[in-house]
């Protein structure tokens, strides 16, 4: 009985708590709409990284929210790759990315000032699915499928 009552009580609590009005950021939302469909948002500082595209061709985009403009990310996107997850640090300097390329799922770290893309290896081997960079860009959490289990790997980044 207690097993039933506890989830019910929490549900009632959540349904009953005071709803707060969310204020859409209309100008920024219009800018995001221009890119077509979009998914996998990652906010940090003045930056929003997301995966956007039309007709099944998707790419990673980085928006400067203060200027409501996309910023260039040379060398990050490839037409033959499918991005799956992205995250950005608060400086807009580092982006972590999971993508599929040639039948393989890759974990990558991009440094915007260098336009460099570095592959990160999982040990032991696994299939990365999602990434989350800490706001200072010095730690990366990766959701990994490994031997039938979902696990979280943490990377310290120099």
């Amino acid at each position: 009985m207690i097993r039933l009552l506890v989830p019910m009580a929490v549900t009632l609590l959540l349904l009953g708590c005071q709803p707060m009005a969310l204020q859409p950021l209309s100008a920024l939302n219009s800018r995001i709409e221009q890119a077509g469909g979009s998914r996998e948002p990652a906010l940090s500082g003045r930056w929003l990284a997301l995966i956007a595209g039309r007709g099944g061709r998707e790419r990673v985009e980085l928006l400067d929210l203060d200027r409501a403009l996309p910023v260039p990310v040379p060398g990050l996107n490839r037409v033959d790759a499918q991005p799956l997850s992205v995250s950005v640090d608060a400086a807009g300097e580092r982006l972590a990315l999971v993508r599929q390329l040639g039948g393989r799922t890759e974990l990558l770290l991009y440094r915007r000032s260098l336009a460099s893309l570095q592959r990160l290896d999982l040990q032991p081997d696994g299939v990365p699915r999602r990434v989350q960079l800490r706001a200072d860009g010095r730690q990366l959490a990766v959701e990994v499928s490994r031997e039938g289990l979902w696990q979280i790997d943490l990377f310290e980044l120099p």
Partner: protein
Amino acid sequence: MLLQSQPGGALQPLRHLSRQTPHSSPSLSWNGRYLAAVVSIGERRLVVVEDRLRGSVLRLPLPGGGQPERVSLAPDGGRLAVQLQQQGRRRVQLFSLSAVLEPDRPGGLRVLGGGSEP
């Protein structure tokens, strides 16, 4: 939903979200004061934010409908990005939380001026 502090992985208490399932897409503010997530209640999905300092939970209904799938909370808690499924299409929308949440800034940042140097 579990919350760990790093390094060490010690479990930190969650007053509202620890028992609620299914839930997805946890997103933390700078100091871990706020934890945003998508919570499923029956057929409904809700965006909620637990304020660990106050021990409260905020329900954030989305204007315009659409089912929330993922959220990303800005580290200072000032903005929220939501991935919505609406009419078979996925899109991201941004919302301001500045009137709803107090900022959770990184440690050591002066918020208010005034007074002489120590």
